[in-house]
C-alpha cells in the first residue's frame, strides 16, 4: 500500500474536498476511511467526494474550564455517512438536531492538518 487511507483523505481535504469511501460490495458509504469495508469485508473501496451537504444528527455544547463554550456535533452527510464535527458561525446552543448544514474546510495552521467543519445551510436542499 503506497498511501494510507488517512493520507488520501487528508490530501482531498487539502484541496478543499470532503472525501469518503464507497463500498461497491456493500452498496454504501464507509467512514472513517479504512483498508477494509466493515459491512462486507471487501478491500475494494473506491474514493468519492461528498456534496458537502448534511443534517445535524446529535449535538452538544462543551464548556471548557477556560474559554468560550463550543459546539460538538454528529453530522449525517447526504451520501449516507456520519462524522463528528462542529457547526460554526452560530451560537453553539442554536445548533439543533435536523439543522441542514454545509461543509467548510478549516485550516488550523501550523502543523495541524486541515479538517472539516460545517455552517448552517439555509435554504439548502
Amino acid at each position, binding site marked *: 500500500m503506497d498511501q494510507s487511507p*488517512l493520507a488520501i483523505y487528508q490530501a482531498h481535504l487539502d484541496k478543499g474536498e470532503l472525501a469518503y469511501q464507497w463500498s461497491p460490495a456493500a452498496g454504501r458509504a464507509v467512514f472513517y476511511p479504512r483498508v477494509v469495508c466493515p459491512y462486507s469485508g471487501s478491500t475494494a473501496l473506491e474514493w468519492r467526494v461528498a456534496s458537502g451537504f448534511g443534517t445535524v444528527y*446529535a449535538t452538544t455544547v462543551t464548556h471548557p474550564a477556560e474559554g468560550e463554550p463550543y459546539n460538538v*456535533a*454528529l453530522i449525517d452527510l447526504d451520501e449516507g455517512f456520519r462524522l463528528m*464535527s462542529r457547526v460554526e458561525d452560530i451560537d453553539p446552543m442554536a445548533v439543533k438536531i435536523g439543522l441542514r448544514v454545509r461543509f467548510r474546510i478549516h485550516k488550523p495552521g501550523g502543523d495541524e492538518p486541515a479538517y472539516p467543519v460545517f455552517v448552517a445551510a439555509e435554504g439548502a436542499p
Partner: protein
Amino acid sequence: MSGLKRAGAAIVGAAESDLGLVADGLNPIDLMAQGITRALDDCGLALKDVDGLLCAATQSRTSGLSLSEYLGISPSFIDTTILGGSSFMFHVGHALAAIELGMCEVAVIAYGSTQRSVGRRQASVREINPFETPYRPFLPSTAYALAASRHMHEFGTTREQLAEVAVAARQWALLNPAAWEKKPLTVPEVIGARMVSYPFTVRDICLVTDGGGAIVLTAPERARSLKKPPVYVLGCGSAITHANISSMPDLTVTGALASGRQAYAMAGLAAKDIDVVELYDAFTINPILFLEDLGFCPKGEGGRFVSGGHIAPGGGLPVNTNGGGLSYCHPGMYGLLVLIEAVRQLRGECGARQVAGAETAIAHGNGGVLSSQSTVILGTQATV
C-alpha cells in the same frame, strides 16, 4: 453468551478495596490485592486456592502479570480482557466458562484505580483520533451528551428527568455509609450546577474517585460449602456496537438490548422477574437507556419512568442501590462495584438500603462511550 450453563458457577466472595481518596502511595495493584484478600476472607478461601485470575486496569498495561507477581501466584487461567467499565461483566462470563471447562476452580475478578489520587489524565492513556480529536470533545462526557441530545429530540426526554436520575442516586447514597457523597441533592441543584457538556452539568456526571475490589467465583458444589450463601450466575450476555461515538449506529439504542436478551434467555427470566437493578450510571442518561434496553420500560419511556422518585428508595423499582457511579464511587471502570452491590443485595447485607426479600438481581456494565455492554443476572439459592 450461549453455551454457558445457568448457575454453572456462583459468586462466593465480594469486597471493595479502600474507596474514595486512598492513602498516598497506594497503587492500583495494591487496591486489587486488597480487594482480593478481603473477598477471599469473605468466603473463607485463601490465596493458595486461587487458580483463575481475571483483572483489568487502565493504569497497568499488563495488570495480570503485575498482580500475579504481587500475590505470588501463577494462575492456570488468566484473562485481562479490557473493554472499559463493563470489562468485569465480560469476565464473569469468561470465568463461568473456565470453571465449567475445568480450566480453573477458583476464579477471582479484580479491579483497582487511583484516578483521583493521580488525576484522570494520568490514569488513562489519551488516544488521538484524527476524526474526533480536532473537535476537542470532552471524552467521555461529550459522547454521552450527544446520546442524551438524541434521546431528548426523539422522545421528549427532559432536563428534569435526567436530573431525577442523579437525585435518586443521591438518595440511595445517603443510605450507604461507603458512599462518597454525604449531602442531599435536588433537581434544581442538579440543573443549576456547573455546565460541562450540555445538557449535562457536573451533577449528571459520575464521580472521579479511587477504588476497586474483587469477587470470587467457584463451582456450585464448592460454593455451598463456603461461609456465605452462594450467589449464582443465572445468565450473562454481551454486545459491542462501536468504539467511538461517531460510529454508534443509533444513539438511542445500546448494545444492552442484545446483551440483556442473551442474559434473560440463559437465566430463563424477564425484566419483570428482577428484584434489584444495578446499572452502570456513568451519566444520568445511562440508566434511562438501560432501563429501556433491558426491558423495564418501553423504548423512549425511560425519562418518564425515572420521574417522581420511581427508582429512588421507596419507589417502584430499586435501581443503583449503592448510590451508583453518580454518588457512591466511580474509579473509572466501575462495573466491578456494580457486581459487588448486586451480590450484597442478594445476601441481604445492605442494611438501610436493603431491598427486602431480593432473590434476583441484574448487574449491567457499560464500557467506553456506550460501546461495550455486558449483562449479568444473579440469583439466590431459591432461584436455582
